[in-house]
């Protein structure tokens, strides 16, 4: 007997979600098709390769799953904040800073078996600290978390980029940092694909978070604060404490994502110029969370869907000859249309709570 609204009662909601996503995808595809056509390319062939690259064969599926690995976590970071009534968009920066942490660990002279531990410890530590900056500003001075996390994202970007080019660069290949030592890497799951074992960590974290949110007093307090500040105050729940917990947890999730992308994804195992292997992992997590209705379980299919979109985009570029910029535009359009219903819901519930 579980206490929250039963999954059975959510069938309707799930069906509704799926049709909502389907409709948004169609609209997104429609708009992008016009754009692709206007650019002088064939929309049919573009979308054929998009789908084929995402789920059309095993290789595509593995690639999609590998992209979903960090998105599950950054999605979770956003979802947990929303549950606590916070609009925390800091996962982007926390991913960078966690990746930097992993590289710092790699730069140390350690016994080989300690690298993995050190990478996670330093990376996550930095990310949690980064997230707590915003948290402390919020509960201590009332600084809006949207503003502070955006600023912290930029600071994280330049700190990481500077460290990459001036401190941790690889003398043999200065466009990237030193690489993670082999003993410090996560094992690959399927040979010759990018799917690495981190996906299990992501899945476990998602499920544990689900349990925390709905089966423990800690999660109860997080949800209570998010649903009704006045009732949670009445219930003796300490708002500042809960808010800090939420910031710390979302920093933890984004931190794991940033570390894993650096130490798990072949073939680079480093941070590259302009952080291109990390950029947007945090922001796409917001879309994932919104599609998954800010529910940890919903985030799993949502992240695979967005992961597929990313995998397919590459194949669209390669096989349909659509230039990178246009591929990115298409991706952006679809992601934006997909996120829209969730954003509207979020704003509505904020207004209703007034």
């Amino acid at each position, binding site marked *: *007997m*579980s*206490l*929250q*609204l*039963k999954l059975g*009662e959510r069938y309707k909601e799930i069906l509704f979600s799926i049709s909502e996503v389907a409709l948004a995808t169609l609209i997104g595809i429609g708009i992008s098709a016009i754009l692709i056509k206007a650019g002088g390319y064939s929309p049919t062939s573009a979308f054929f390769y998009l789908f084929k690259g995402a789920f059309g064969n095993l290789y595509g599926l593995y690639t999609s799953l590998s992209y979903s690995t960090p998105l599950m976590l950054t999605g979770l970071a956003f979802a947990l904040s929303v549950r606590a009534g916070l609009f925390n968009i800091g996962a982007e920066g926390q991913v960078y800073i966690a990746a930097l942490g992993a590289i710092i660990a790699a730069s140390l002279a350690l016994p080989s078996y300690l690298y993995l531990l050190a990478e996670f410890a330093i990376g996550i530590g930095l990310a949690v600290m980064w997230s707590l900056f915003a948290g402390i500003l919020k509960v201590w001075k009332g600084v809006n978390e949207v503003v502070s996390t955006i600023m912290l994202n930029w600071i994280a970007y330049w700190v990481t980029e500077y460290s990459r080019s001036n401190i941790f660069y690889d003398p043999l290949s200065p466009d990237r940092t030193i690489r993670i030592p082999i003993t410090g890497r996560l094992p690959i799951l399927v040979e010759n694909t990018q799917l690495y074992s981190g996906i299990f960590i992501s899945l476990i974290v998602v499920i544990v978070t689900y*349990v925390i949110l709905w*089966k*423990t*007093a*800690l999660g*109860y*307090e997080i*949800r*209570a604060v998010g*649903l*009704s500040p*006045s*009732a*949670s*105050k*009445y*219930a*003796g729940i*300490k708002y500042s404490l809960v808010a800090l917990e939420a910031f710390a947890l979302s920093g933890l999730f984004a931190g794991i994502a940033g570390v894993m992308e650096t130490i798990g994804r072949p073939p680079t195992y480093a941070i590259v110029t302009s952080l291109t292997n990390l950029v947007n992992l945090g922001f796409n997590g917001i879309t994932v969370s919104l599609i998954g209705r800010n529910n940890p379980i919903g985030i799993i299919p949502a992240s695979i869907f967005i992961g597929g979109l990313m995998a397919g985009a590459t194949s669209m570029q390669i096989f349909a000859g659509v230039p990178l910029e246009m591929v990115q535009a298409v991706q952006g359009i679809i992601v934006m249309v997909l996120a829209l219903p969730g954003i509207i819901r979020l704003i509505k519930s904020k207004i209703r709570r007034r």
Partner: protein
Amino acid sequence: MPPEKEVAIEMVNISKVYPDGVLALDKVSLTIYKGEIHGILGENGAGKTTLMRILYGNIKPTGGKIKVFGKEVSFGSSKDAIKIGIGMVHQHPSLVPVFTALENIYLGLPSNFKEQVSLKELIERTGIKVPLEERIEDVSLGIAQKVEILKVLYRGAEILILDEPTTNMTVEEVKEFFSTLRNLKKMGKTIIFISHKLKEVLDITDNITVLRRGKVSGSLPTSQATPEELAKLMVGREVFLKLEKQGSRPGEKILRVEDLWVKRNDGSWAVKGVSFEVRYGEIFGIAGVEGNGQSELIEAITGLRRAERGKVFFKGENVTNAHPLKLYTMGLAHIPEDRQKTGLILDMSVAENSILGIHRKRDFLRPMMIFNENKIKEHVERLIQQYEIVVSKINAPARSLSGGNQQKVVVGREFSKTPDLIIASQPTRGLDVGATEYIRSLLLKMRNNGKAVLLMSSDIDEVMGLSDRVAVIYEGEFMGISETSSVSEKEIGMMMGGYKMGEIGIK
């Protein structure tokens, strides 16, 4: 009733089964005469709204006949009902908040609408004065209600259905509203007045029909009705409107408030130097017209609002501006005024709400703060049984419960804390007779068991009926504190209007 009276409405054997199988009405028959005010009385869920929506053509009956002015009718929609002069003001306001009163009155008129009297003339004749140019969101609920009535009358209604129109009105607004209704009656309008408040129905109606669980349980002229009789018809058993109260045996002080000053959200002073004490074994009542600082006073005592000056002592310990959690662990329970915003989290389930504030109690937890769901289930099921909470399942969101059942969840939860002092703010507001009686009896039982109750209510009868001592608050100050037995309702009423106890001749 003189026999020559013209029958306006006759409903015969009306039944209604909702699509989900709820039998809301079971062969209800009802006769309403032209020019009368007819009361329909019943507890929440008795079927009053359903019956009226059928009369208004809003929903279709499953069976039965309706005659209006002698002619049998069958409405396709409420448009048909409006055409033959039936108008309804719904329980929940249906005006557009951002439109002005005037815009709302004109809104949705059919294109071929021909006015029988101009709006100006209508206002003059009925005496319903409303600020036509003001937006609905800026006016009081009493005024909005009048706008709704004007809107209905303007469409040519001869028969007016008012579904619980007084729910959100203050005492003053109700008084004024009733004089408007009497005016309309004089003009020959037929009014159907729906309520679950005995006093109002007795006050304003000519005839009363009582519904209970979808059936007519009684029908009688108001002149022959007594409150006891009506309550019995509504609830189906003997109800003790006047609770038996043994003499109080007050003991030690449990709560002491000293010169407390509290601000409103806008920074103005809500409470200006209030002092009093509550003792074990007594109910201390705070009466007053709403908005005179009583809410802020209670919030300050219970740790929900900062006290700017003054002190609060609980069981001898200084707890001024203490955290609510500390007060709870010391034996305080609080039934807050606003159950929907403060007492409950509407989007959480009934089970989750049943542990709000006690969710960290060891009984409900396993190691690592994991909930012991069996224990929580036992707890919520005990509350449901003991307090007769009507709920489909314990996982249903609190939002899906009726107002009365929501309040029972709050009250049940707070009593389950076995407190030494319970602070109850408007504990029975909006509740039907049965639930009200039950909650009042619980408060009395607390006191009889030697515990303390601080009761804040704007219902004079409630405060006078329950309290051993009563204070009246007016503009943030106490007008006086007195033994309830040595002060009359009239004197309390005068203090609520701002007269100090000394000024009206009580020492």
